[in-house]
């Protein structure tokens, strides 16, 4: 595979390669920014356009767009506490408080740099692992998926600020929501009340948009003034470059965190079935638990932006492993990408690396270079985007509200999605006011189905002992127990001193 390294690079830079790269990236950022539209949608929408194209150009366009959404989505997450895509939800937690403090420019610049570096990390790992990807993917079975899901849900406890009980309740609500729909194990349809729309379950995207975008805009309507509470004076030039400089400083003084978070992202990306959206939460929590002086997480700690943003880009590299090697999508975007590859005559699967090594390399290069391009654009635009936080909140809120509902509808063209969004908007607003963690609900909704399904699958395959006899599953179980007891151990330690 590595022999075609140079040729593939040349193909990428030969016109119209760069054109597609730029085009794809820009469209991708746009899709990322709009809540409700993200990686899967941009690939699905660009797909028909690529049909007449050369396969390598199609890849450049699609991957360029897909990769760009991960960064694009961080922009509204930081500016208006609304994740542009599901993979940016954790960025809100510290990104928005930073915007409140007048540091939106720095936050966006940081997000951009972390995204680019995360993508590079992911691509490096992808290139190294690809030959060994088989063993890795085959080592993960139902028991492991279950343990991962449980670990992910256990993480809720950690993410809950304030009352752990409220976090658990929110999580349980999410878990209950995840059981709506046709249960593939028993063949029973649960809680749909005869509504066909709910047959395949409560969709994540409308819920996410409602809980965050709509709830936030309701809150902004009520608030007066501007989003930024801090001082915005000073020399505009210095502010412009100051924000970017601070961003670079922040990332490079936390390189080990960035590498750790990228690692988390890649690992989660490699495991098919655990959605990429989980990656950014896991990275965030990992940062929160492993960083010194972590009291400021959730109040504007820049490390809370570095972690999720690097993870949600590195996960793309990871997700390509099962996708390319087995034709098993590592995430939703990958599923759509698979279709795109098939249409262009590229059959993912065991033979892919032998038949089309140059295309794989083009893919990897695009991932890296596309991300760098996108991040550069983002970083340069950051101080300008910062201006959004100085607009009176009513205008921002009205725009967000409208775009969010349209975004919810636009995903599949089903207006029930928009209704769900509004309902969860009200739910989200209420949750905020009453101090319930919305993220807990979302995590449980995302992982609930996986947990239930893999539990049954594992049981059928190997009986109850399987969770403890398989080494990886056992390790994950112990890990979960450790993760859950960490807060208690820490507070005991503090108490003893």
């Amino acid at each position, binding site marked *: 595979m590595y022999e075609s390294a140079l040729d593939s690079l040349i193909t990428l830079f030969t016109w119209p390669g760069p054109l597609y790269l730029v085009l794809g990236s820009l469209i991708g950022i746009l899709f990322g920014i709009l809540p409700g539209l993200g990686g899967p949608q941009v690939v699905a929408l660009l797909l028909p356009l690529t049909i007449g194209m050369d396969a390598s150009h199609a890849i450049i366009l699609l991957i360029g767009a897909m990769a760009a959404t991960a960064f694009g989505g961080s922009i509204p997450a930081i500016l208006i506490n609304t994740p542009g895509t599901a993979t940016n939800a954790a960025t809100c937690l510290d990104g928005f408080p930073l915007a409140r403090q007048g540091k939106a420019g720095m936050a966006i610049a940081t997000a951009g740099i972390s995204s680019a570096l995360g993508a590079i990390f992911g691509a490096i790992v992808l290139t190294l692992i690809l030959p060994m990807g088989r063993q890795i993917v085959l080592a993960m079975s139902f028991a492991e998926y279950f343990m991962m899901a449980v670990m992910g849900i256990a993480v809720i406890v950690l993410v809950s600020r304030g009352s752990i009980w409220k976090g658990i309740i929110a999580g349980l609500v999410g878990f209950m929501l995840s059981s709506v729909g046709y249960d593939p194990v028993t063949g029973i349809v649960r809680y749909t009340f005869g509504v066909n729309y709910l047959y395949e379950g409560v969709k994540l995207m409308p819920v996410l948009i409602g809980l965050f975008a709509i709830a936030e805009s309701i809150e902004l309507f009520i608030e007066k003034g501007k989003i930024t509470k801090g001082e915005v004076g000073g020399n505009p030039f210095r502010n412009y470059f100051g924000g970017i400089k601070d961003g670079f400083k922040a990332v490079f003084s936390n390189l080990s965190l960035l590498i750790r978070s990228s690692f988390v992202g890649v690992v989660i990306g490699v495991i*098919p079935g655990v959605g990429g959206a989980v990656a950014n939460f896991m990275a965030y929590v990992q940062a929160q638990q492993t960083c010194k002086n972590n009291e400021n997480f959730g109040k504007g700690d820049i490390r809370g932006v570095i972690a999720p943003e690097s993870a949600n880009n590195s996960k793309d590299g990871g997700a390509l492993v099962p996708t390319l090697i087995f034709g098993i999508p590592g995430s939703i975007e990958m599923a759509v990408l698979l*279709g795109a590859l098939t249409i262009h005559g590229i059959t993912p699967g065991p033979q892919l690396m032998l038949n089309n090594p140059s295309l794989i390399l083009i893919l990897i290069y695009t991932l890296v270079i596309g991300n760098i391009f996108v991040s550069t654009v983002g970083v340069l635009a950051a101080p300008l985007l910062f201006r959004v936080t100085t607009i009176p909140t009513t205008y921002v809120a009205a725009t967000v509200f409208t775009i969010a509902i349209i975004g919810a509808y636009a995903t599949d*063209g089903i207006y029930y999605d928009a209704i769900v969004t509004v309902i969860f908007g009200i739910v989200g607003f209420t949750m905020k006011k009453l101090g319930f963690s919305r993220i807990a609900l979302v995590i449980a909704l995302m992982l609930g189905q996986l947990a239930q399904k893999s539990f049954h699958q594992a049981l059928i395959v190997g009986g109850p002992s399987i969770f403890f006899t398989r080494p990886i599953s056992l390790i994950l179980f112990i890990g979960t127990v450790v993760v859950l007891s960490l807060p208690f151990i820490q507070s005991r330690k503090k108490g003893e001193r």
Partner: protein
Amino acid sequence: MKIFLNSKKLVLIASLVFLVLVVVVGCGGGNSNQGADQSKVEQPAETPKDNFPEKNITWILPVGVGGGFDVMARTIQPYWEKHLPNNPSIVIRNMPGGEWSIGINEVFRADSDGYTVGFFNIPGNLTGQVTGRVNYDLEEITWLGIVGEVPYVIALSPRSKYKTLQDLQNATQVKIASEGLGSTAGLGVMIAAETMGINMINVPVAGSSEAITAAMRGDVDLVQYPIESTIEYFKSGDLIPLLVYMAERSPLLPDTPTIVEAGYEELLSVVQLTRIVGATPGIPKERVEILRKALEDAVNDPGYREAMGGRGITYGSPEAAARAIEDGLRLLEKYKASL
């Protein structure tokens, strides 16, 4: 915690919500004839000479982007457009959900003017109406033609201790992975197992790729899927073909015996995936003929054949399609209890 909402702001929020909902419902619940491409061409008055088609045709795919049906539809699309008079655009609209029923419902709901067509997965789609989960009747669809018949193959895990059909039949329990009875593959493997006397237990999965990986890992012994989905794995040794559901040996798997050789010829019509194009009930006959003929020409177009690389192309007439539906329904009625 006090909520600072005075009545003025409440009214503002409420009216905004109402306004947006009205707009969304108005646009969303309306005519499915307008696909993603809104080209509003005036409908001609009922003249004796019908110039069909005069605007875009919407092709509803009740599946997500990227699967076998989606790929096939997108490959046929340019050829179908080419062979239709007036060269209209065919706009593909993916409407996944409800196990095909959301998209299928759209086809039923559309106007009977021939501007909406759909794609169907037989016999999988029939399960819904046999169990009463859906209230449409696929026998009413205006069938335009069969465009693909996908032959299945039984694939064994290389890590399974069962190597032959005898082994499977003698085993106390064989683990199988499939999407369940609502899917054509799941239905097929269940019926096959029952017919051949194999005691199976099903591990439910979300799709063929999940099932195939489960077999590769050795979590299950057997999966049953189209040859086109599994051929790569046979080549790499990740799966072992046991039997093909074809009348004669497949040129792709010349060493694999057929189900006929194994003595179960009756399973041939049962375990198969038929891709059928159909449209809303009640379309005027002339328009149906136009659509049907263009589809047939498209499938027989050498350009299309080349694009598909010879994979699973057949053309079956609308009558054959109707027969496939009838056969499918009869078959499912027999197994209704287990559905």
